[in-house]
């Protein structure tokens, strides 16, 4: 009976896999995902949800499916890490486990895991950092002084153990500045600038902070409780206020400009820059519903999958010739740049331009 049932599910699976290709829709992808879940095929569920979301990025059902599958997958990884910890405990295994709990949003387990790690490996700053980060997230969300002060203490402990930990200095500078402890924030920002002199955003933030009136003394208890009483942080993000805020807008402007330049090349009909569900378009293309965008998304995704499974690495670029002329695609992670141009248009230069566009947009994001 069990075997018959299983055979029936497999038959249904084949039918759904074909249906997804022939009539793709959010519900066909969800149905397929459901069968994969029933068969315990989590990776396939994730792939189905991911593929569905590429075609239907606004589908709430597919998002739910992705979330569920991720949760199931994390549960499996947690179980495996727990087993490994029982056999041979290391600080790294604890950190990995705590990070999985962070992804799950289970603060109690993050705390439990980090505290266990700190007890067994008191000289490892990693668990202190994860715990402090989680408390910081809670503080920014709920404005509870206890979380904020604990986070500060945790980050200070990280710096005691690892004085060159740039992440801890950055997080401390940020939280101290935003709660009004400008003098203390300045100390960490100066240290961060010494550690990362090439980071322009830190230099700008430092310059900005030095121009502000510095109080003689910072009473953290008073400041954190004042935040709770006011229900808001007195200052905005440190780096954002120092001029990095315009960076996003600036990078979009730069992408738009580069895309417009590509669209002006003789023979180019359509040019698009896609990042996840968002797209910038130029040329003979009206809006984000243009079929070309969907073609590019599907082709890039299929090429990525095929290249990986053929063991030739990650798909980076491609040219397709046909009745439509040429389609040039350049892709890295979730960023895709593509062009539709007439037959006979030299594609080498276009591919180089697309590659530069993708690379520069990623550099700015980082």
């Amino acid at each position, binding site marked *: 009976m069990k075997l018959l049932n299983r055979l029936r599910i497999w038959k249904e699976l084949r039918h759904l896999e074909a249906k997804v290709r022939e009539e793709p829709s959010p519900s066909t992808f969800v149905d397929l995902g459901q069968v994969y879940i029933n068969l315990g095929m989590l990776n396939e569920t994730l792939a189905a949800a991911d593929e569905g979301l590429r075609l239907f990025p606004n589908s709430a059902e597919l998002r739910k499916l992705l979330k569920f599958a991720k949760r199931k997958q994390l549960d499996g990884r947690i179980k495996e890490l727990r087993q490994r910890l029982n056999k041979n405990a290391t600080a790294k295994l604890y950190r990995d486990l705590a990070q999985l709990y962070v992804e799950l949003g289970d603060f109690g387990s993050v705390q439990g895991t980090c505290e266990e790690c700190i007890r067994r490996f008191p000289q490892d700053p990693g668990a202190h950092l994860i715990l402090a980060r989680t408390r910081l997230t809670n503080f920014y969300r709920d404005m509870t002084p206890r979380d904020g002060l604990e986070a500060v203490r945790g980050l200070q402990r990280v710096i005691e153990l690892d004085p060159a930990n740039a992440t801890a200095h950055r997080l401390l500078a940020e939280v101290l500045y935003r709660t009004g402890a400008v003098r203390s924030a300045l100390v960490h920002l100066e240290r961060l600038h010494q550690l990362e002199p090439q980071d322009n955003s830190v230099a700008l933030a430092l310059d900005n902070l030095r121009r502000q009136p510095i109080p003689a003394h910072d009473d953290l208890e008073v400041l954190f409780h004042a935040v709770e009483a006011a229900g808001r942080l007195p200052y905005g993000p440190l780096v954002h206020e120092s001029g990095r805020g315009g960076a996003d807008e600036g990078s979009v402007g730069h992408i738009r400009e580069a895309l417009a330049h590509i669209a002006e090349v003789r023979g180019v009909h359509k040019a698009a820059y896609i990042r996840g569900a968002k797209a910038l378009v130029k040329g003979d293309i009206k809006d984000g519903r243009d079929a070309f965008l969907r073609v590019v998304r599907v082709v890039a995704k*299929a090429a990525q999958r095929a290249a990986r499974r053929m063991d030739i690495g990650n798909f980076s670029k491609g040219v397709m010739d046909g009745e439509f002329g040429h389609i040039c695609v350049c892709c890295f992670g979730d960023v895709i740049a593509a062009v539709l141009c007439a037959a006979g248009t030299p594609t080498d230069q276009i591919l180089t331009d697309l590659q530069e566009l993708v690379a520069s947009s990623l550099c700015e994001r980082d």
Partner: protein
Amino acid sequence: MTAIQDILDALREVPGIKGAALVTPDGIVIGSSLSATLNTDVVAGLASFLITTTRRSLREGGLGKFTRFVLQATNGKVMLIDLGDSFLVVHTDQFARLESSRVEVEEAAREIQRASRVNVS
């Protein structure tokens, strides 16, 4: 069929080309001369997946058919050439200059089409 195999074997002798295969759009292998690192059935299956997915999305987008698709990845390149009833799949290393081997690949594609016609009739 031997002629097709000979053409694929000869194509593999071209500098930079690591292997070639002739597959149908539904993934059936007609002939292959691929390196040991590549499983012929896997390549055929993936080529079929890529061909059907691309064809369908182009058709839905009103763009018509594609005749050639060159993919460049970090560790290699793959070229798919439409020969009518089948596709020629050419695998090269990542450093291969496709422009320099284009003549040989196109010549091989023509020869395969000729050989297929002779075999069918």
